[in-house]
């Protein structure tokens, strides 16, 4: 392909004429604005960009993007997007989903899209609650969560979305936060550049049914001590004074947080998104405690693996390369294959 022409698109070009109807104060507004501002950077024509969603508050997203889009049914967006992506490799296909949509009703499609490594960018808006159905607990709600459907507290253990994605062999996994536009866009940028499935969890505040779920990660007085900002090639240290770090204790399976002053500098883990073994990124995904301390954000994992789309397309290309006849001639040959006989 020749060098792409600069399209000179702006955020405004990606705003549809539809009135945005999320609750005032919803974290979705910030994500929408961040994405609309970010899309021009990709220099992909609007007509070649498609947003596919399921059901839920987050899934209204496609209506507000002036691209192609489909608001489908609960949990099925990864399946629908797979059919679109694999049959149309020229498109940039994004899936917008939520914690209920992706991890409950659509859990199967999510893990299989990641396993296949379909060329989809999957944005999971995680607010740890069912919003559109007015406040039931979700598969990411904490144990004991009191909601309309769990007056005595939720008895379910929650999913850790990143651990799940990594267990499903996701080739790209990242996490970001609705309120940090710069960081959000940096993770989206890396996701967009990735060939294959890119799974991005976005912590999103539902100010109506689960307000403040991620406040510790946003409050200027706590966030630096709670957040681990992952950067490829950099030692993993965090805290307002860099007072914490991540180490791999000998004999252990996972990673642990220590006080930086208590370890030798060479013991601090240097973040590497390209580690082939998903155990490393999985260990990172297990660091946060129930109180959200030690929450890594950024790109956890980004490894090269052939995408499903590319394998399917190369099989098609190989089969078509041998063809010398017109489709009609090929069809006539196919119909007459096997044992035939002629009656005169």
């Amino acid at each position: 392909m020749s060098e792409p022409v600069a399209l000179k698109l702006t955020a405004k070009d990606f705003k549809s004429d539809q009135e945005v109807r999320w609750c005032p104060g919803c974290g979705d507004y910030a994500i929408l604005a961040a994405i609309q501002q970010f899309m021009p950077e990709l220099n992909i024509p609007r007509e070649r960009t498609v947003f596919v969603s399921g059901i839920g508050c987050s899934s209204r997203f496609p209506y507000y993007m002036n691209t192609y889009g489909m608001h489908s049914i609960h949990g099925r967006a990864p399946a629908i997007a797979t059919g679109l992506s694999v049959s149309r490799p020229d498109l940039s296909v994004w899936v917008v989903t939520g914690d209920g949509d992706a991890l409950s009703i659509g859990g199967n499609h999510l893990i299989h899209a990641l396993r296949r490594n379909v060329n989809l960018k999957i944005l999971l808006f995680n607010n740890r609650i069912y919003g559109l159905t007015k406040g039931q607990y979700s598969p990411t709600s904490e144990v004991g969560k009191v909601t309309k459907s769990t007056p005595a507290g939720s008895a379910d253990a929650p999913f850790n979305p990143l651990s799940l994605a990594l267990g499903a062999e996701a080739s790209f996994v990242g996490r970001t936060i609705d309120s940090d536009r710069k960081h959000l866009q940096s993770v989206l940028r890396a996701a967009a550049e990735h060939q294959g499935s890119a799974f991005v969890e976005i912590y999103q505040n539902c100010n109506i049914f689960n307000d403040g779920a991620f406040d510790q990660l946003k409050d200027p007085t706590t966030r630096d001590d709670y957040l681990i900002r992952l950067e490829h090639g950099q030692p993993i240290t965090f805290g307002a004074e860099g007072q914490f770090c991540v180490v791999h204790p000998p004999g252990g399976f996972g990673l642990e947080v220590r006080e930086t002053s208590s370890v030798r500098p060479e013991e601090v883990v240097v973040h590497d998104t390209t580690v082939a073994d998903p155990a490393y990124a999985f260990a990172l995904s297990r660091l946060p405690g129930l109180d959200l301390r030690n929450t890594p954000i950024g790109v956890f994992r980004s490894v090269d693996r052939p995408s499903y789309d590319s394998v399917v397309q190369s099989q098609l290309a190989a089969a078509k390369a041998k063809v010398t006849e017109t489709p009609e001639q090929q069809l006539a040959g196919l119909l007459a294959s096997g044992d035939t006989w002629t009656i005169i």
Partner: protein
Amino acid sequence: MTKQIRQLDRVVIRFAGDSGDGMQLTGDRFTSETAQLGNDISTLPNFPAEIRAPAGTLPGVSSFQVHFADYDILTPGDAPNVLVAMNPAALKANLADLPRGADIIVNTDEFTKRNLAKVGYQVSPLDDDSLAGYVLHPVALTSMTVGALAAHDVSKKDAERSKNMFALGLLSWMYSRPYESTLRFLERKFAARPELVAANVAAFRAGWNFGETTEDFAVRYEVKPAKMKPGTYRNITGNAALSLGLVAAGVRSGLPVFLGAYPITPASDILHELSKHKRFGVITMQAEDEIAAVGAALGASYGGSLGVTTTSGPGVALKSETISLAVALELPLVIVDVQRAGPSTGMPTKTEQADLNMALYGRHGEAPVAVIAPRSPSDCFFAALEAARIALTYRTPVILLSDNYVANGSEPWLLPDVESLPDLRVEFTTEPNGEDGTTFLPYLRDPETLARPWAIPGTAGLEHRIGGLEKADKTGDISYDPANHDFMVRTRAARIETIPVPDIEVEDPDGDARVLVLGWGSTYGPIGAACRGLRQRGLSIAQAHLRHLAPMPANLAEVLRSYDRVVIPEMNLGQLAHVIRARYLVDAISYNQVRGLPFTATELETTLEEVLKNV
């Protein structure tokens, strides 16, 4: 010795054995030889759902019936003239279907004390007089095969496994079949193991030569070629024809075919077949579940492919929500339901027509779709093309109701000329359709077809969003307006109801029939054979067969009213009859069987005769 040669006009042979005995393959090869000779043919495989049920037991019996004749036939035959029974279980399971006087060829080597006990024979039926009413041919099939292969470099096990080729050789001799195609087939099948080609060919020849030399088979039969339309033929099953029809739909529409499917009996063969045709641009995806299969197909349709999903009843139930989405999105989608006996897992390898209600009504909300059903194995090809035509032209899901009987049955197929197949080309919308010349209205309909524009991603200037929420007429914007919803619901209904479909044709050669038999789908053959039988006996009866179940042909009301009685035989408890009664206020007689087997022509003939007597 010189053998007597007797001419027959038709023969029904049933090959029966253990599921590991290779009866399907034997039947298939005999069918192919018979096709080469030019007889008309109809076949019916009957096998258990278990891949290898315990050897020698009744549940493990697998059979293949082939009916061939020197005239055109409509069914695989009610009762076999010849039963090949490879073991006691095969004899016991099939004996009740045999008329007195039928030939029975048994493999005596398998009639051991142990095998007899497995199926409850105290005394071998070969030794008492229980088979006195039949012409019994005891043949030591296994030991003669092993003996014939003594000089071959194959294991005893492989030698024993060649006994089906011995049986095929014997039957091929008995009915004077040309066997070159079988020899070619064996060379292809065992190309990697030449010693097995030699062994199987030797077993086949041993069987043939045994027929020629033994005194037990004094008569050899001939069935002359049938008078068939000139042209090139092949024998084809319904699933194979349906697969080719989908490939043809891709070629004739110029669109890539995308099949999303999850393995399910008896539809999986369509997935297998289509996965071979990548050179036509066909993409097949074995999805993680039935829901993903239809979802991916719908996603591909959204992107400009012909999206198809293939399944059986339980799968359609799972796909229901997505089919409703396709109704709302107004995108083309072909859903193939190869029906099997239900509910639930039911009898997965047995046939039934009990998904009609689900196809017509099995969705939430007012969610009409088009429904069509093929009448015979080769008709599956044309039904697939018709389903694609409706889906593409009217931007709607179409459910194609095949069933296990037509899917696995086979018949000769006069190959169509590709150029004569319908032109399915579609035009994607590429320009704004609003009056201002710049706006795109995704739900502005073609006044004739009521279809909305199909503007696929990648088309600059037509970026738009669609979804499951109710849409405003024309703009497609989200709308909760009561009047708009009422309008859209009625429009979606009208969109299906006004699809022009061919008038139903009535076969009434005498012209004075007072009773009409109305059928749909795979019952065409047995109903047709029953009507022929009645007419041959001087009775008048009319036959009409529905291909389009939604919408129904415009002339159907008039046809139904032209007869004193309407009889509707179905392999369900009266689902079409219910529709006919409700829609046309016709007091139709419902005749039903749900035994997992097709109707026999004889039983239908008897039933219809009763009706005729009482008109």
